[in-house]
């Protein structure tokens, strides 16, 4: 369970919890956009470095959490990058680095693969900056303020709240199966899924009954924590982005 809630746990515990959601979204999205549109060198490298420094520095996220979180997208990025670098079919160019049957790669395709991989790593780290500093509850409250229909935010909020209940049920089921020396088989997976689905219905019905008893009619509005705008945070955002773009322009001019 630890790895599935690691990012959320970090977001709840970190000092950036006190920063306004909108300000963190601006920083994260600006870095993400830079990662997507700036040249990979030095753009993506600087975005990745800025994210790593901010996450492990002022945001106080343990490096182990970051390593765990990156374990999911990294294999896809590596396999995807290699697949982009290697061409299937067509005529190999004169500068081909290797040819193997219909497969070949030349410096241009390898550069494309590295570019895609760099954008992927920098983009993932940009989103990680938001994910490790902003709990989902804060994001949903922010969406409510942006006038996203209340019913939709409500279902997303309830889904988030039920996640942890079901996650602990799923892990209890798995622990029980392991304790009985059960290996992961199709039958154990199906039984676990079935038990989980039935339990999710039961939990939802019981929660519904409990909430109705407390006068629940349309939505579960919670009080949002009032956070003051942070000029320092916004100035840092502007400085980081200006620095990255200045370096990008300088490298392209030189």
């Amino acid at each position, binding site marked *: 369970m630890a790895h*599935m*809630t690691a*990012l*959320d746990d970090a977001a709840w515990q970190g000092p950036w919890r006190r920063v306004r959601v909108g300000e963190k979204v601006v920083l994260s999205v600006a870095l*993400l956009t830079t*990662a*997507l*549109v700036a040249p990979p060198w030095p753009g993506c490298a600087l975005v990745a470095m800025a994210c790593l420094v901010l996450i492990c520095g002022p945001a106080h996220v343990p490096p182990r959490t970051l390593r765990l*979180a990156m374990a*999911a*997208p990294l294999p896809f990025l590596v*396999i*995807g990058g290699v*697949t*982009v670098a290697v*061409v*299937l*079919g*067509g005529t190999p160019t004169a500068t081909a680095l290797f040819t193997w049957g219909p497969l070949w790669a030349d410096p241009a395709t390898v550069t494309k693969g590295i570019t895609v991989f760099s*954008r*992927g*790593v*920098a*983009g*993932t780290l*940009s*989103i990680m900056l938001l*994910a490790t500093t902003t709990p*989902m509850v804060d*994001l949903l409250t922010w969406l409510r303020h942006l006038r996203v*229909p209340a*019913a*939709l935010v*409500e*279902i*997303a909020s*309830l*889904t*988030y709240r039920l*996640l942890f*209940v*079901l*996650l602990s*049920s*799923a892990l209890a089921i*798995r622990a029980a199966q392991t304790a009985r020396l059960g290996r*992961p088989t*199709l039958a154990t*997976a*199906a039984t676990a*899924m*079935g*038990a*989980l*689905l*039935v339990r999710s*219905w039961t939990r*939802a019905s019981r929660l*519904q009954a409990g909430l109705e008893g407390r006068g629940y*009619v349309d939505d579960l509005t919670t009080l949002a924590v009032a956070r003051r705008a942070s000029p320092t945070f916004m100035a840092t955002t502007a400085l980081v982005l200006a620095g990255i773009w200045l370096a990008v322009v300088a490298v392209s001019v030189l």
Partner: protein
Amino acid sequence: MHIAEGFLPVAHCVAWGIASAPFVIHGARAVIQESTKNPESKLLLAAAGAFTFVLSAIKLPSVTGSSSHPTGTGAGAILFKPPVMAFLGTVVLLFQALLLAHGGLTTLGANVFSMAIAGPWAAYAVWRLVRVGKGPMELGVFLAMAVADLVTYCVTSLQLALAYPDPNLLGALAKFAGVFALTQIPLALMEGLVGVLLFRFLVKVAAPELARRGLINTAQKEAAHA
């Protein structure tokens, strides 16, 4: 199979977002209507979303040695219908991007199109076809769940091929489909088999709920109770 953050060019992110939007809006409208008509259904829908997310915690045996997990979009399409899955799938993908770093925000449109729209709709079409043809429930469930996975994998491969088409699109499609086939085809068959076992289990323990959703008839419900 999620496309990671930053992997698609900006134009493709925007195009897949636009392509997904009508389905997600249609699904969101269906969810709003349903929750206005029956406020108690909000919690059931939330439970369905949470269930789909938590499936990532259940391990399946994998042919390639790596651990895999079910996606549950086929089961969701049968149980809750594709429009609802389009919205719930979007919420789940958003949560997966921000809580697990699976997928991403810029690739959300592309991932929603493959996993929450194409997969569930294909699964539901196959399920209806088998049921209209009076085929057994097990066959319908197996095909629906396997097809949901396969269609998701094919659409994702197509999305990647369109983004990086090499000299020709077909070569790129074969390349991406070939690389991911090693894990995705066995996983699709595996999820189909798990689906059959899952629905057998549900017929035993949740027959009234399945009957209410029109998935089994009264005779099957009584047989399950007997």
